[in-house]
């Protein structure tokens, strides 16, 4: 089950869009935390139990790349399922991030359906545990 979700994007408009898309895709997490950069996101992960991270890459102060580099060494934080929602198209740069099977990439612009598919692939559609 997805109880707690962290939505990380420097744009409040996009954070709202992601939250709305989650709802439209049929997900009803208990709590949705928000962060406007990787630094704030790290703070949430340190203090809260998070089941899924939905994050942008191009953010001020700490980018998504830097965020992933910081959580990677930690067995607990590095293993949290993570969907990168980004305009990044460079295969070389994306391959640096998608080093674990618990990570997916969703190109912007995205739809509630494509978000649902990405999350379902992460959590195992057949398990019926995604929503």
């Amino acid at each position, binding site marked *: 089950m997805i109880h707690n979700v962290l939505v990380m994007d420097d744009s409040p408009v996009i954070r709202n*869009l992601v939250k709305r898309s989650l709802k439209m895709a049929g997900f009803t997490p208990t709590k949705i935390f928000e962060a406007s950069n990787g630094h704030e996101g790290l703070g949430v992960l340190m203090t809260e139990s998070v089941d899924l991270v939905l994050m942008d890459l191009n953010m001020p102060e700490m980018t998504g790349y830097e965020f992933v580099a910081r959580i990677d060494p930690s067995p607990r934080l590095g293993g949290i399922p993570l969907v990168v929602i980004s305009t990044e*198209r460079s*295969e070389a740069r994306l391959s640096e991030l998608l080093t674990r099977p618990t990570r997916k990439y969703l190109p*912007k*612009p995205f739809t509630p359906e494509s978000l649902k598919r990405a999350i379902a692939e992460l959590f195992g559609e057949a398990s019926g545990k995604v929503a």
Partner: protein
Amino acid sequence: MLQPQSPDESLTDVVGHMLADGAFVMADPDPEPGAELPDGLRVEVSFDGPRRGVVLIDAPPDLGMEIALNLGADEEAPDESSAVEALRELGNMITGALLPRLFGTETVFHLGIPTPGRMVGADEAPPVCQHEVALVSDEGHRTRVRVRFDDLSGVSP
């Protein structure tokens, strides 16, 4: 056999696609591409990689507000800060999609954080850019997207 697109054609395609699919705004080529835009918002997204430059988006606040509403801004009547955020995101999406279209997905570009500002006044010279597209939305909002390469040499798009 498909003919390769020119940079201007790629820019037009990407901007139209991002407006439609990323911002839910339908737009067509501006029948008066040289028409002067009223003072409005400008978002700049810098990029660095095989080429270095900036993508500039000029648009009226009303287009930003329309996009903000389409993206689900909380407010029934979004203010200018929501409009700016919406245009920043549009700039991010356009730049992120355009560069691999011009240079291939194996190239690595670093994008800057989209920077909002105001368009220059009518008495100031417009920025010199190598590529430009002028579109007008169904609601009649004019927008210009320009690409400026700041390095004198490098990989050709």
